[in-house]
């Protein structure tokens, strides 16, 4: 923590070596969040680069009472939202980039393929949420941030963050069946829970009969 503060101070003083070190320490975090916010877009590198350019330019505005990581997340979120706004004004292409998603080496090939398809579908659903709802969902559910910290990142009251989270989850659940890969997963999980492959009503009946 103190080390980061020292780096920040040196960056503010124009020390390029310090900025390089700051970049190296935080580039993976920024990339991970940016990827989750933009959904594996091919422009990820541009987004990450823009984040650090903004950091370089705005470090003078960073106040030491806030955590640097929180401030960095805030910058990242803002850059991603700007990027998305700009992207919305461009023509839409459906893209399936080769090698765009990391390889999960812990599963069988068909499971890997299924997992990738599900994650892609998941990002398509996320893409349909409003910016505000998607941001808090990604920060909380995927990044694991507490609502109090998210509130600082998005500059909103904690209650607002919780409300957005609630509606984001609800909307995703409602949309989920529109993605075949996720609908199939829902069916499988429903089957595993209820012990039948039928509708949830029959599932409830079978649970009642269980001891």
């Amino acid at each position, binding site marked *: 923590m103190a080390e980061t503060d020292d780096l920040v101070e040196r960056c503010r003083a124009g020390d390029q070596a310090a900025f390089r070190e700051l970049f190296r320490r935080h580039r993976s975090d920024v990339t991970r969040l940016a990827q989750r916010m933009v959904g594996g877009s091919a422009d990820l590198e541009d987004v990450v680069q823009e984040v650090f350019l903004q950091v370089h330019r705005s470090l003078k505005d960073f106040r030491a009472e806030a955590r640097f990581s929180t401030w960095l997340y805030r910058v990242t979120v803002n850059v991603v939202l700007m990027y998305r706004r700009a992207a919305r004004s461009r023509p839409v292409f459906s893209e399936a980039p080769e090698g765009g998603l*990391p390889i999960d080496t812990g599963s069988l090939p068909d499971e890997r393929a299924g997992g990738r398809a599900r994650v892609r579908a*998941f990002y398509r659903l996320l893409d349909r949420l409003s910016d505000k709802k998607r941001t808090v969902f990604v920060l909380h559910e995927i990044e694991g941030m507490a609502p109090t910290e998210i509130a600082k990142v998005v500059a909103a009251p904690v209650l607002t963050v919780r409300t957005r989270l609630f509606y984001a989850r609800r909307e995703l659940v409602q949309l989920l069946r529109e993605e075949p890969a996720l609908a199939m997963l829902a069916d499988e999980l429903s089957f595993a829970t209820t012990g039948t492959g039928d509708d949830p009503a029959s599932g409830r009946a079978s649970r009642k009969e269980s001891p």
Partner: protein
Amino acid sequence: MRPRGEIEALRQVTREAAADAPPELDWERMEQRLLVANDSRPRWPSEPRSARPALWKSRLALAGVAATLAVAAAFALFGGSARVQPVPRGLMSALPTERDIDGDALAEGAVVRAGAELVHVRHAGRATWTLGPGSVAHLASRGEFLTVALDEGVVRSRVVPSPRAESFAVEVGATRVAVHGTVFSVRRDGDQALVSVTEGTVVVGPLAVRGRTEGFSLPAPSSGSFFAGGLAGPLQGRAAEFVAPAAAAPSPAAASPESPAHARGERVPGAPSDADLERVTQLVADGVQQCFSSSTSQGGDVRVTLRTTLRFSVQPDGSVVSPVFDPPLAPAVHSCAAPLLADMRFSASRRGGKFSRKLDLQR
């Protein structure tokens, strides 16, 4: 009834997404580009550091030099050679500070100076020109032909596409760089005009034939240095001068980026940019629409609409494989459109990608 399966599925796929490791980007190159910000030499950060270090010290007049660059934005429909290098977004912001000026509030002759900062001059709906650090320019004309005279340094311009030829121009001494919609930068270097085209295509020619320019063609991404023997004199130039100094061919063909972008020391994006995709597929879409109109029989007042999707894969070298229409087009329309598909080509990228574009064809 609670959608238990959906809730569980959402939980699981969220966990799967969270388990994804972030991709490894080209950190070294990004780091180098970020640190360009510390270089006080007035140049665009995307330019090679080693390129022409002494250029900026020259303040020689450009008397006797005349050239005109005009955008050939309506380049041949089936040319297929146009490439778009993504604009290095945000690079300008690497420099310490920036300043915005309302260009429409400037009087003709107003001088704009950039100190250590970038200065963006915006003319609503027409163009934005940005002066690099240490550069000086003045507004030569704010009328029908919006004209900026570059007195020193470098100016980068983003021009709103216009049906008028030469709706915007940058003058460097007697050199004129005129466009009607593209992104380009002009640097003054003694008796030469150094031009770098990021989007679109420019043609360099003598000032005497303003509006009907003939001469060197510079398709993006390419650069060139030009000088002429007089206001209407013959133009001399070397394309790709400061992008690839070794390639000194006195032909505009040298600027045509047949070599991989990374071989020319340029930034290679991960995948074709949206602008690149839009431009190339729009050419195809327009051509297919023409094929559809001409190859299908007329049915009086009956309006026929066909919706299809063009799917294709782009290789890292920019070539296109397996372009197909889904659903397929009628044989006659497909035969007509085949040359368009064969000519599709994108800027080089690291991994290419698979893309699709919906087409609504109407007759």
